[in-house]
């Protein structure tokens, strides 16, 4: 039987990859996909702990994370499309109007 630690380690690796993607990449679409990667690794941790404690609440929370992720993607992509329309770029370094 695979121990829960293996699933948590997989989730940790995926979460770190998401962080690196957000920090290093400058294409707004890829940054967004990295955020999805992090959300998914957290879902994996929730389900692993739900299995460890045999408590269904962890899976219910994953359901809500899915809903919020869907909404977040819809609104975020709408914003990216709108930025692209007005500035013809999706490079986040080019969108620095509010930079201090």
């Amino acid at each position, binding site marked *: *039987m*695979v*121990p*829960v*630690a293996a*699933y*948590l*380690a*997989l*989730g*940790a*690796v*995926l979460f*770190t*990859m*998401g*962080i*690196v993607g957000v*920090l*290093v*990449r*400058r*294409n707004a*679409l*890829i940054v967004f*996909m990295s955020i*999805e*990667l992090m959300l*998914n690794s957290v*879902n*994996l*941790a929730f*389900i692993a702990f739900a*299995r*460890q404690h*045999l408590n*269904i*609440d962890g*899976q*219910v929370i*994953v*359901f809500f994370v*899915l*809903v*919020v*992720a*869907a*909404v977040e*993607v*819809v*609104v975020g*992509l*709408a914003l*990216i*499309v709108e930025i*692209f329309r007005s500035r013809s*770029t999706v*490079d986040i*370094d*080019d969108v620095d109007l509010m930079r201090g």
Partner: protein
Amino acid sequence: MEWVIFVPAAALAIAGGVGVIAARQPVHSAIALLVVLAALAVTYLLLAAQFIAVLQVIVYAGAIVVLFLFVIMLLHARSGEGPVEKLPRQRVAAAVFAALFLAALIVGSVAATRPLATAPEGFGTAQQVGEALFVTYLLPFELASVILMVGIIAAVVVVKRGPPAGRGGR
């Protein structure tokens, strides 16, 4: 026995994760994200979360990645990154802090692990998740529908072209 399924799924997920953050074209990232989501659905099945695994494939792979692909198609060729990196040493700093963070996460997650008991019959089925959702978590469930509605309206409002400037909006 479970290792036979877990190891390829984990390897596929990690390879997909590398693909997401390393691909030059956004469309390749989206396909790599699809691989990660499918591999994670397999691990959900191993963790006795059948309903969530199906939901993952339908909602994430079926809806969210398709939405990504549509937007990539819409923004298409000119959606690359500029050649100049405005923040020097950003990559090095990101790698260092990510490595530290990963070490902390893994130490913490190993410490939080207890040995697994056998899952009882019917754990993680649509029936059990549905019961929890519609009895214990009925109010959050209804609020989720409000959030979805707000999201739809927000997307339409953000993308809609406003009336020409100078004329009062009606």
